[in-house]
């Protein structure tokens, strides 16, 4: 139980509350909902063990499901991006950097790489989330709008958060 664990737990609670009480009620153009809680997955450094990433992302997803009455949807999607996060991060890092502990921040990656990395994970997440959510009620236009809208608004919010933290 390191300090890191508790910091992450605090961030998780904050994100869950923020999402449940504020962000879930935002529907820009009735399609784009910010899914800011994927921040918890985006943050893991190369040193984080994969099982830990998986458990964290599953827990976040499950909590979001509990609060927004979408059982399994966020949990499945979060687990998936938790699974691919280390591979995606490694795509943007040189060999030397992978060896040392490197966290995916704007400072470490630079603008282009950071935005691309964030975009890939956000897009995959939105795609999975909207697809699973629309499982029984499939309308291609609404689905595409939700995926696109949520990706854009979440990406903008993530970049803003990163810029503030810097």
């Amino acid at each position, binding site marked *: 139980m390191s300090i890191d664990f508790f910091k992450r737990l605090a961030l998780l609670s904050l994100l869950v509350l923020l999402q449940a009480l504020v962000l879930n009620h935002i529907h820009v153009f009735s399609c784009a909902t910010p899914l800011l809680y994927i921040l918890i997955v985006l943050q893991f450094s190369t040193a984080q063990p994969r*099982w830990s990433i998986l458990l964290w992302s*599953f827990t976040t997803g499950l909590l979001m499901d509990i609060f927004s009455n979408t059982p399994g949807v966020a*949990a*499945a999607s979060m*687990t*998936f991006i938790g699974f691919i996060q280390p591979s995606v991060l490694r795509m943007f890092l040189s060999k030397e950097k992978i060896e040392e502990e490197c966290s995916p921040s704007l400072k470490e990656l630079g603008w282009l790489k950071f935005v691309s990395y964030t975009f890939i994970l956000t897009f995959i997440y939105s795609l999975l989330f909207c697809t699973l959510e629309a499982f029984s009620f499939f309308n291609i236009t609404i689905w595409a709008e939700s995926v696109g809208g949520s990706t854009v608004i979440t990406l903008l919010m993530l970049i803003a958060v990163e810029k503030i933290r810097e």
Partner: protein
Amino acid sequence: MHNLSEFLQKYHHWFIFLLLEVVSMVLLFQFNGYQGSVWFTSANAVSGKVYEANAAVNQFFSLAKVNEQLTQRNVFLEQRIQQLSEQLEKATGDTTIASKPIMAAIAGNRVIPARVISNSIDKQDNFITLDKGAADGIKPDMGVVGGTGIVGIVYQTSRNYSIVIPVLSSHSRISCKIQGRGYFGYLHWDGKSPRHAYVDDIPRHAHFRLYDKIVTSGYSSVFPPGILIGKIIHVYNSPDGLAYRCMVELSTDFGNLRNVCVVDDKIMRERLEVQRAAEDSIKNKKE
């Protein structure tokens, strides 16, 4: 065996991934049929508490609006009750059905429900403002009655509002009688307690008791007879010693007046007109 454990160690995250995905999928597909899964929705205790706290905060900020809506609803319902009890009385012809004897006394007259929007009880000449005016059919000199008794007389009307001179005014003189005994007098107020008024000129030979009820006489054109004003709680001699003076405890609580009715007594007015016409013709004859 060694190979197996090595394999598990190397690819353990795959197993965790698959396990978690399976759990998620089970949740996703079993949700509707599986009652126990209520645990994984916002109906569980923790998320329920969070949303409850959130709702409490939201409710607090919308209280003013809710209050306004409730007041509107309340007024609407009170008017509805009044309409229905009137209908009930008309339909059954049995005035004892109505819980309010006051309403029974004014049944048969046109009644205009109104709300008190401003009121005072602490001055020498108090006024009450009602939210109905000439547009609703209110005219000066109509009687105003509350749920528990008499209130006053309409003094002036504008299009949408009207001013009432209540019993609690030095200008108020309402013709009244002791119920069941038939002695008449005038009700007036001494400007002190908003709970008490006085009836003068009850003759010395009159037989009555304490706690007899004072009601409207019906001699003026303002009120139909028999509307409750209050009860006698004290009897004095008049200053000249020729009559009694009764202290009356008013049945209407003027400090807490919300909904009233304006009585439009057409028959009364007709009678008054005939009376005036008769007086005029006598005058003309004399001349």
